[in-house]
């Protein structure tokens, strides 16, 4: 059950799909690059959990998802948010703690919600989004809306109790939920094999009679096929899927991480194999697009990002009078 891909009809990954994945992944990468540059320049403070290196996963998933499908993610979720289509202006304003942010400056980087794009919850608690996504999928099933819910989490989250409760419940009720474990090999500062008893998290799917796949999350073809199979199955009423997408994070747990626990050679090799430029090279080498065409895409994305950061820098701070708003529907003293 660990890899069912070979047993099913392999969805084709054509040139246009690869370019679409490249475009989404590049947007997430450039955004992350820009944010870290701003932090390093001292222009923005706070916490930031870079997702650099993991962009192919949400890019491939969002090449399949519909705009009204739901995504739940976690604090290392900027690539998921950008890929789902959270408007960059309101996303950036939120990261900057501004009133024009998607959450009016009350959420911040660990709590992004943007209902307009279906990014329904971002949690700051490891794994807590997993049972919530079960409820999002349950709602879609009960309303017969045809929507699916994708929940992203790390390898560390696969060791919390709620992961197991959620997988059991989703499988029991055949919910349209796709559990995406972005296995970046580290649970905060602890390497995978010091915290996880099984060599592949995908193996845990079998314990819940759940379709499960172990894929190279940095391989756009494999990731796209996995997403296609899982999302199509969910939409067809064929229940949930656990996708373990193996990847690697380049920037450690959070900004300022000195990464002494990540072997230098391992990190170096991962960065040399950066999946985003690798895909770029492949698209050009395969003559799917020219270098100039990709550069034009990148320029357009960079302009959108620049615009978003300018917007956020100029955006007003929250009004202190709004401190007590939105605790309840009607204010309670």
């Amino acid at each position, binding site marked *: 059950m660990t890899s069912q891909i070979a047993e099913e009809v392999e969805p084709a990954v054509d040139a246009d799909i690869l370019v679409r994945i490249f475009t989404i992944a590049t947007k997430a990468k450039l955004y992350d690059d820009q944010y870290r540059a701003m932090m390093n320049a001292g222009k923005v403070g706070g916490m930031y959990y870079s997702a650099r290196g993991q962009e192919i996963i949400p890019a491939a998933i969002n090449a399949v998802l519909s705009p009204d499908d739901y995504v739940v993610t976690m604090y290392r979720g900027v690539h998921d948010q950008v890929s789902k289509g959270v408007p960059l202006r309101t996303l950036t304003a939120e990261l900057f703690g501004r009133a024009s942010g998607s959450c009016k400056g009350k959420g911040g980087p660990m709590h992004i*919600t943007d209902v307009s794009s279906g990014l*329904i919850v971002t949690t700051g608690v490891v794994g807590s989004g997993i049972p919530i*996504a079960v409820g999002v999928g349950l709602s879609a099933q009960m309303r017969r809306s045809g929507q699916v819910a994708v929940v992203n989490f790390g390898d560390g989250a696969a060791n919390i109790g709620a992961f197991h409760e959620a997988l*059991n419940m989703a499988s029991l009720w055949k919910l349209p939920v796709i559990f995406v474990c972005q296995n970046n090999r580290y649970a905060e500062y602890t390497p995978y094999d010091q915290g996880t008893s099984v060599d592949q998290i995908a193996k845990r799917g079998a314990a819940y009679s759940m379709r499960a796949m172990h894929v190279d999350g940095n391989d756009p073809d494999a990731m796209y096929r996995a997403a296609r199979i899982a999302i199509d199955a969910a939409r067809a009423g064929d229940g949930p899927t656990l996708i373990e997408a193996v990847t690697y994070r380049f920037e450690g747990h959070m900004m300022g991480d000195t990464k002494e626990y990540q072997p230098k050679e391992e990190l170096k090799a991962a960065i040399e194999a950066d999946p985003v430029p690798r895909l770029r090279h492949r698209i050009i080498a395969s003559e799917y697009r020219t270098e100039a065409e990709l550069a034009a895409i990148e320029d357009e994305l960079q302009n959108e990002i620049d615009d978003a950061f300018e917007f956020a820098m100029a955006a007003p701070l929250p009004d202190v009078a709004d401190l007590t708003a939105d605790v*309840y529907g009607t204010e309670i003293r």
Partner: protein
Amino acid sequence: MTITAKSSDGAVAGRKMKMIEAISEAIDLAMEIDDSVFELGEDIQDPKGGGFGIHKGLSTKYGLDRVRPTPISEQAIMGAAIGAAITGMRPVPEIMLMNFMAVCADQLINHAAKLRYMSGGQTNVPLTVRTMTGAGGGFGAQHSDMLEGPLVHTPGLKVVIPSTAADAKGLLLSSIFDDDPVVFIEMYPLYFSASDFVPAGDYRVPLGEARIARQGSDVTLISWGRQVHDCLAVANDLSASGIEAEVLDLRTLVPLDLDRILASVGKTGRAVVVHEAVRRNGFGAELAATISEELFGQLHGPVRRVAAANTPVPYASVLETAYMPSRADIEQAVRGLFR
């Protein structure tokens, strides 16, 4: 906003029933009124219909889709309720016993309570989690706690504790149709002992309105849930000694009817807060502090608290009785204010 069905002769329709029946009736009615209302919880399906049979007949009437039995997975129950609530449903999860809320505290405290705020009002969590508890039944330390204190201390949650059958129905309907997460605390000893006239139909008691259970002029007894009945009994006894106690049943701790509390204590000049939760850092402390801040010059004595001992709930009956706030404790606290 109290909606009451009236019969053709103008009399309020309804009948006397036990609290447990009133709760069943409210759930049934809510599911009938609104297709987005659904239950999920352990053992709630027929034929058992829940530990006390509260859900009996509902899964047969509405199907297992809407009266949804769950595995013993409190985190997933609460998480699923939250996810459904932010995407258009009105879930009514049941956490069998209040102590088990500690098992899903992350979902309740970090998520249900905070998602509206953290999302800047884009999402809200219209769920009502029902739970049952209460000491005195010999269930020991992990099946009896009153944990309203930490819930009241969590902005974003509403906290409701009925003491009568009518309020159980009216408050539960209001809770289910409220757009914020409500923790609805049922003190199981009241399931069968509280029996009173319950209006028929879509009867709602607004959240945030305390009930004057007894009028009085000399001292205000402030309580909720089961201890309201103890306060009423003590008040009747005190009347023979010439002390007329007003008894306030708060019904909802959040939102809190501070106006009615201050009006009553402003009138009597004396207040005793009575609750079954342990004394230390209980909600009584908050009430005592607030009353003191607002009415300091008008009080004839300090605000007294009568509450459980600062211990886990013990098993042996003699210990459990000693643990719980008693009618004698209430009377002693009141008399102390008249020395």
